[in-house]
């Protein structure tokens, strides 16, 4: 595939040049010309006001992809305990398999040693089938051991889709398996679609992309794998049209688990394997559990930031307590640094650190432009401020107007109850619905 500019339609307006994320378009004479840096991201196709840019598709039927069926989920377990992301993927895999068709199953691939006690849990969370590979050599994760048994199983049973959690183990195993099978792999997905309808619905809700061209091909059932790229500045949807299985790693915490149903049963397939000790070239000397070290602002998943609204330096004691509770890092606005309440190393913003955590708590921060520049691409922003007119509320996903000295202690107190509170709220909602 390649991107092509139709000279007869190109007016040389240059809009595509400004828009290309990869500097892959040059103006040569009066026309736009695609250069070597093109990644076929197709942004220019959507941008061109004159429909002068097209993609040239070339099909090949070399690989018979019709023989592949079912959705497989790699069931990552550590120390005999299933990782949460594997259950999330069973939920997502179930949804996708139902989109593909009635005879499509979602299957857990369980690799390890003495894992029988985990099988019922997999059925309860939605697995139609469990493929189990059990051997003393598979007690600890090793790249060589797990890659071998997994690729052999995929070759034998031919799943259409294989999903992994994007954990340190999933991101070690998946590329190795994909390379051995000579198929594609998409990293760190945050959304998956099979049906074009649901994909278009997603695009229309979340982007300004023109979807009319996708509508022309609604029978497309390739797995559309959407992920952040370019440091999270753009989203890209990746497909793997000619090879099978279609493989993806998926970020933990994004997909939804199915509701646990212990009455659900499934089919167990014990997979034979030919693994021997000499296949494994690394030796795990020890596995050590350790508390997460305090990370820097740039890497923090949660940041609790305080500003002028704290009133004085002692306010950061509360912010610190808050950060400790939620496993976050303490940040601050420039105003709090200038007041001498906290060290500059905590400052978030244009002249401080640019951050992009999963949650940014802005406590007593008004939201000056220079602060916003350093944190507004955070996934979720929560603002707590006395002043309902504070500009911070313009960028916040959730805002609370009130006294942070009263609200934060309550958040700390209730933090561990979040799951129970949420479950209760969904129950009340469904009750009111049915009533």
């Amino acid at each position: 595939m390649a991107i092509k500019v139709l000279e007869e339609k190109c007016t040389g307006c240059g809009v595509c040049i400004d828009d290309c994320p990869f500097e892959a378009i040059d103006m040569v004479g009066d026309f736009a010309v695609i250069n070597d840096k093109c990644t076929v991201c197709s942004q220019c196709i959507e941008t061109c006001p004159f429909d002068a840019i097209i993609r040239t598709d070339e099909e090949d039927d070399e690989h018979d992809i019709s023989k592949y069926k079912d959705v497989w989920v790699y069931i990552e377990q550590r120390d005999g305990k299933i990782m949460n992301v594997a259950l999330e993927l069973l939920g997502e895999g179930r949804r996708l398999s139902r989109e593909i068709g009635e005879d499509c199953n979602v299957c857990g691939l369980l690799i390890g040693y003495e894992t029988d006690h985990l099988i019922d849990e997999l059925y309860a969370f939605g697995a139609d089938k469990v493929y189990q590979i059990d051997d003393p050599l598979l007690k600890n994760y090793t790249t060589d051991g797990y890659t071998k048994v997994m690729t052999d199983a995929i070759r034998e049973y031919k799943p259409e889709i294989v999903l992994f959690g994007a954990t340190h183990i999933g991101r070690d195993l998946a590329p190795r398996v994909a390379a051995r099978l000579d198929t594609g792999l998409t990293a760190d997905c945050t959304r998956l679609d099979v049906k074009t309808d649901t994909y278009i619905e997603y695009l229309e809700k979340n982007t300004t992309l023109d979807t009319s061209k996708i509508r022309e091909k609604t029978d497309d059932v390739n797995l559309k794998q959407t992920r952040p790229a370019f440091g999270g500045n753009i989203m890209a949807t990746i497909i793997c049209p000619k090879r099978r299985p279609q493989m993806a790693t998926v970020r933990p915490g994004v997909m939804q688990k199915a509701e646990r149903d212990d009455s659900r049963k499934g089919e167990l397939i014990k997979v034979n394997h030919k693994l021997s000790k000499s296949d494994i070239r690394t030796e795990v000397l020890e596995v050590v559990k350790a508390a997460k070290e305090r990370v820097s602002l740039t890497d923090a998943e949660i940041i609790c930031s305080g500003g002028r609204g704290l009133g004085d330096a002692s306010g950061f004691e509360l912010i610190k307590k808050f950060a400790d509770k939620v496993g976050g890092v303490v940040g601050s606005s420039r105003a709090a640094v200038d007041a001498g309440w906290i060290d500059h190393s905590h400052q978030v913003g244009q002249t401080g650190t640019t951050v992009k955590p999963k949650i940014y708590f802005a406590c007593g921060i008004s939201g000056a432009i220079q602060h916003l520049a350093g944190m507004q691409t955070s996934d979720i922003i929560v603002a707590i401020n006395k002043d309902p007119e504070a500009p911070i509320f313009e960028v916040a996903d959730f805002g609370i107007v009130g006294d942070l000295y009263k609200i934060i202690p309550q958040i700390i107190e209730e933090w561990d109850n979040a799951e129970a509170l949420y479950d209760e709220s969904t129950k009340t909602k469904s009750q009111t619905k049915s009533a």
Partner: protein
Amino acid sequence: MGLKIIVCAKQVPDTTEVKIDPVKNTLIREGVPSILNNDDANALEEALRIKDKYPDTHITVISMGPLQAKDMLIECLAMGADEAILASDRKLGGSDTWATSNALAAVIRKLGHFDIIFAGRQAIDGDTAQVGPQIAEKLGIPQVTYVSEFEMDGDTIIVKRALEDGYERIRLKMPCMLTAIKELNKPRYMTIGGIYEATKKEIPVWTAEDIGVDLNTVGLEASPTNVFRSFTPAPKGKGIMIEGDGEKELARNLLINLKAKHVI
């Protein structure tokens, strides 16, 4: 004979400098500098530390990309690498991670014997963390990813591999592929002398033909994955103001909303 180490490096746009135009909702890339990928700097640093200890170690930095990636390779030479090679060819353009690993594995085969390959865990523009393991697969050597500590004793290597909730200690033999994370070390700066020496060195540019790679396994058309669409997320509108009677209820309603978004 000294150790032969290969370091895989990539020139990337500094994505932390990228901003979104709030009006047009597009990427602003003016003034975004191209840099040596962060994790790759850690990979090179670890190789240099081995060379500090065993001066007869030979370090070759390899990269694939457009000709401007030479600037990044000069930086690697100025830090202390012995040689640098750039695979650059239109036929290699548009490669996904599978195709890229085929090309880089071909470069490494052409170089001949090696003991250790260091790569960065992932590049900041793509964040896939796939090319290192896929090169190892194509070369048929063992790998350890997320390396945060490195020790060497003869031809045996002991590394710490970072996990989300701790770490593993792993022993393996050379030859092998190790991918570095930033906890591994602190990359050194270029020295004035190093820069002077580096600019005198020639950086060979190898074409697809030079590396002898099967053209059906590299480039855009051979790549199993394609970009179907790419887009900037729509700017988000004003958020939700949490309501509630008293602080406790406000706090609870906030947590319910965060839970519904799957962020906690």
